[in-house]
C-alpha cells in the first residue's frame, strides 16, 4: 500500500532539507511517530540506520530502516531492514528561491500476509494518510515560523546596528 502527501512551504529548499535529513527532529514534526532513533555510529547520509515506530491504531508499527538514497537537497529515501516492509521518501523541489514543494511517500506492507494483510493495509491507510498530512502541516508551520523568527532577529540586529 502506498500513501503520499505534499505541501508547499515558504522556505528555501536547503532549510527544509536540514529538517528532514536530521533524525533528531523527526519526533518534533512527524505525527504518530513515537520513536526515531539513530542505530549505530552513522547519524545521517547513505547507510544511516534508524529505529522508527509509528502508532497505527492499536500498535506501534515500524522497525529498523536504512537510508538508501541521500541526494541533498532533493531526495532522501529509506527501506526497511527489520519489521514491516516499508519504503519512504522525501522529495523536495525548489519553486523559486524562497518556496519549496515537499512530498512525502510511504509504501508499506507485510509480504506473505495474504488477505488479512491486504485488508489491514487498506484499513491502516486512513491513519497513515492522516499522520502524513499532519506531519507535512507541522513541518510547514515549524519551518515558516523559524523563517519568521530568524527574519525578525535579522531586522532587530540591523536596527540595533544602524542606531549605534
Amino acid at each position, binding site marked *: 500500500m502506498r500513501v503520499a502527501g505534499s505541501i508547499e512551504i515558504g522556505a528555501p529548499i536547503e532549510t527544509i532539507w536540514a529538517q528532514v535529513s536530521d533524525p533528531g527532529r523527526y519526533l518534533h514534526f512527524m505525527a504518530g511517530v513515537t520513536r526515531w532513533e539513530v542505530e549505530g555510529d552513522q547519524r545521517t547520509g547513505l547507510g544511516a540506520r534508524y529505529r522508527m*515506530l509509528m502508532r*497505527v*491504531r*492499536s*500498535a*506501534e*508499527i*515500524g*522497525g*529498523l530502516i536504512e537510508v538508501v538514497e541521500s541526494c541533498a537537497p532533493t531526495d532522501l529515501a529509506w527501506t526497511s531492514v*527489520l*519489521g*514491516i516492509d516499508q519504503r519512504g521518501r522525501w522529495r523536495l523541489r525548489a519553486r523559486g528561491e524562497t518556496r519549496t514543494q515537499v512530498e512525502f511517500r510511504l509504501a508499506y506492507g*507485510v*509480504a*506473505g*500476509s*495474504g488477505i*488479512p*494483510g491486504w*485488508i*489491514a*493495509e487498506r*484499513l*491502516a491507510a486512513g491513519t497513515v494518510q492522516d499522520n502524513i498530512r499532519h506531519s507535512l502541516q507541522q513541518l510547514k508551520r515549524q519551518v515558516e515560523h523559524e523563517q519568521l523568527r530568524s527574519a525578525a532577529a535579522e531586522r532587530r540586529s540591523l536596527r540595533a546596528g544602524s542606531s549605534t
Partner: protein
Amino acid sequence: MDLGQTGGAVHTNGHGDPAAAARAAAHSHNGDPSGNGAAPSAPNPLGELLGLPGRLSRLAAGAVARRIPPADLDERDPDYIRESLPGLWLLASIYFRGEVRGMGNVPEEGPVLLVGNHSGGNVTPDTSVFTLAFSSYFGVERVFHQLAHNLVVSMPGLSFLRKYGTVAASHENAKKALRSGAAVLVYPGGDYEVHRPIWERNRIDFSGRKGFLRLALEEKVPIVPVVAIGGQETAIFLSRGEALAKLLRLDRMFRLKVLPISLALPWGLNVGDMAGHLPLPAKITIEVLPAIDLEEEFGPDPDIDDVYDHLLRTMQDTLDALAAERRWPVLG
C-alpha cells in the same frame, strides 16, 4: 491469537519427561510449586460415584500429560508471527479497539518476566493484543515466549500457538526460556483468574501463586507488570465452578481447578468453555508498568510475601485507574 487459559506462572510438571510429567500432573492440585496452594485433596467419594474413580483420574491425567509437547523453544517461528501480524492487527484494532500503553517500560534487551492479569475465559483477547504490541514494537526477532496451561498446548487445533512461542507453563520451561534470553509472559492467576465472575472483573487475583517471584529471583531477571482491562467483559462470566471441578476431579485429571459457567455467544449457557466462545467486542486497554528489579528494590533475600503484596497492590492500583477511565462496559 487465542491463547486460552494460561497457567499459573510456574508449574512443576513440564520438564519434558512424559512419565514424570504424568506423575506430576496426577499429583498436582494447584500447579503452584511455591507450596502456597491447597493441601492434596482428600478422597472424593462423590467423584467416584460419578464414575471417575482414582485409577481413571490417573489414566486421564497421564493421557493429557503425554499430549503436552516438551518445550522446544525452537518451534517459535518469527516468519509465521510476522506474516500473521496484520491479522492480529485487524483483530486488535478493529474488533477489540486495543490500546497498549508503556511498551517503552519493557527493557530493550535481555530476559524479562512479564507478569500479567488474565481475563476472558478460554478466549483471551488481552494476550492477542499484547502479543501484537510486543512483536510490532520490538520486532519478531526479539524472542518472546508465553506460558500456557497444559490443556492449551496439548489441545488439538491449537498447535499453531507454539509458533508464537507458547510453551507449557512449568518452572523448567520458564527457566529454559529466560536463560535463552527471551522475554517470557506469565499469567500467575491462570485458569483461576481468567474465569473469575464478571463482578470481579476489575480485580487482580493470582490465587496466592508466588512461584513466578521465586523464578525471577533465581534467574535474576526483572519483572514487568502488565495490567489489562476489558477481557472479562467479553462474556458474562457467572462462576468459576470450583466445587463442580472438584466433584468431577478435574483438578486431578487436567490440573483444572475450575469448571466455569458463563453466558457467552453462541452457546448461551456455557459450561466449561472448552470449545471457547465468540467474545464480545470489548475494548481492551493494557498498561505496561515500569520494570521491577527485585534484588535492587527489595534486597538480595527479599520476603516473597512482601514482594507479592507490593506487586499485587501496584497492579491493582493501575487496574483501578484503568477502570475509572472506562465509561461503559464493553464499549470502554
